[in-house]
């Protein structure tokens, strides 16, 4: 791992979770100095034609002790909202890590839905 890098590694390389499921993984970093603090956040954001809306659903606090370290985290996928994709609006879930100072960060997108893939609003075609 090169200096200044932060990597999020999800267990079993999973990127899809069911609502209520456990999201386990680890975050590894290699920085020039020992981070003062850190957080792992489960967030969703909308994208598409509308203004972007963002929400942080869960936060896990990290306690860094070294400039090169790996720490595990565990999050729970909420019941809703699902990852979905429409023509105007889409919703994306992600795990974000931020280390202070200097706001070093990383982001890993995931899917949260009952089917294992994002819900396509127009999967059945355009409505008649």
């Amino acid at each position, binding site marked *: 791992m090169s200096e200044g890098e932060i990597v999020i590694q999800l267990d079993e*390389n999973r990127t899809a979770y069911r609502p209520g499921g456990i999201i386990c993984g680890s975050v590894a970093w290699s920085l020039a100095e020992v981070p003062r603090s850190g957080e792992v956040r489960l967030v969703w954001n909308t994208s598409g034609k*509308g203004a972007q*809306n963002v929400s942080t659903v869960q936060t896990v606090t990290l306690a860094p002790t070294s400039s090169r370290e790996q720490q595990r985290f565990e999050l729970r996928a909420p019941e809703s909202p699902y990852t979905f994709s*429409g023509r105007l609006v889409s919703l994306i879930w992600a795990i974000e890590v931020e280390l202070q100072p200097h706001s070093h960060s990383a982001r*890993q997108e995931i899917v949260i839905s009952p089917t294992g893939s994002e819900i396509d609003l127009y999967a059945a075609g355009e409505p008649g």
Partner: protein
Amino acid sequence: MGSIAIQSRSGGGIIGRIIATVFFGVFAFVGVMIAISMQKDRRNADAASLWNVTPCTIAESAYVLPSGSSDGYRARIRYSYAIGGAEISSERFSVKDSAENDFEKIQRILLEYPSGAQTVCYVNPADVHDAILIPSRKASIAVFLFPMIFVGIGVIGMAAMWARPAKQAGPMIRSSSSKPSRRLLRWGLIAFFSIFLLVGLALSAVMLRQAGTAFAAKNWPEVPATVAFSRVASHSGDDSTTYSVDVLYRYEYGGKTYLSNRYHVIGGSSSGYDRKARVVKEMSPGKRIMVHVNPRDPVIAILETGFTWDLLFVLIPLVFVLVGAGGIIGTLWFASRGASTAAGSVAAAAAQSPQLSGGSSRRGKFIGLSIFTLIWNGFTWTFVILVIHDGGVKANLCFLSFLSVFVIIGLGTLFLTGQSLLQLFNPTVQLTLSRTPLHLGDNVILKWELAGRYDRVQRLTIVLEGRESARYRRGTDTHTDTKVFFRQTIADAAKQVEIVKGQKPLSIPATTMHTFDSSDNHIEWKIVVKGEIPNWPDINDEMKLTILPLPLSEIKPEVQS
């Protein structure tokens, strides 16, 4: 999906920000200019109030008629005072002598400083020939708050346009709870609309009081008067000149002689010269007329009392009140909607009622349309009547052509209001679900029943619709786009017995999206009821359905990537 995605923020182009910055910059600049001007006047007034107080005698107290159509009346008070044994004469009344269009102010000065009266004047210690009769009143500190409001709004607005969140060192997306620019803009908008509201309330209070005076004046004593001077006064504006009737008349009340030039209660000027010229021609000097005198303050007299078309100007400040109040309410409503839905919750608090009715939406539509139509047509027709009354159609053809656009829109809203009124008398549709709350994948029974004149309905359709909607800003405008992604016909009845009452199974699809609400993006589910009524506005009701996500117990445990 191992890549890190970087999302860019949408909404509000650079050109829109520049335009808005210029707009707020002008606000701030105007505020600064007003403050500088007020400060300059205040300094002059402060200096003069420290001059030497010296006894003086009023030698002459008279008024000066306007020298031209755009000039005003002046008081000429000549007074004499002694300094070091020498008698000095002066005509300077105050630091800033200016002409007045309202003769009432001149009349009060003449009454306060009659010929022969003993009073005091203020003599400049640096030049004993420089004196004034009254120092200007010191402007209260509170008065300086007025221009500071403009400066504050301008600065806040400009800052909000360009304020950015802390720079993101990585690919994260900043949470919506920490958007300083949005909060700043919200407060800037509230301050901006507060100005409209305060100005509108202040002007409304003044004009309503004047309107009250107009009607109260009908009961004032009526006394004979003689026209001393008359003209059509002109007032030059930025783009055009307006005119007003100026008739100075003399009357007696309580053994004293007064002069006044108040024609109507509400002064002001307007375009249209000819009608005013006709009035002035009839009011030639020497003509005997009757005027109404305020018995509590005989300086105030009015020539025409009661209702006059000018009183419609009272409605104009209400525009400011409506814009101000509407803007504040709208800004706070959007802010609260954003706060309450920021978490994107599935509106669990709005538990789905098993009974749905479209009556409230019809009433809401009618009330909303009625208010808008009343305000729009009220203001539009007020201007049309005032313009036609003032100068006639031919003289104001250009302006009336411009107003015709507003008239056409007003007629359109009138039609829609009428249609929504008729829809209030349509049969009401009551829907009942066999089970609530509703989840994705649920199968329930939907019952319907019509009440009222259901015999007029020839066809009834009930449809379940899923819609996605996105709100975005383009420049300074806000748009909302909506698209239907799911549509399922629940019932389509053409026979009376099926129309008036019935039930059908309703299957909520399992592999689609549940109800979702965030500040600007929504997934909504609605039941749309349409009833065709010949020669009458159709039934067109929409009822909101809250569809919750699949219960966790019904979701398969294993999900592989």
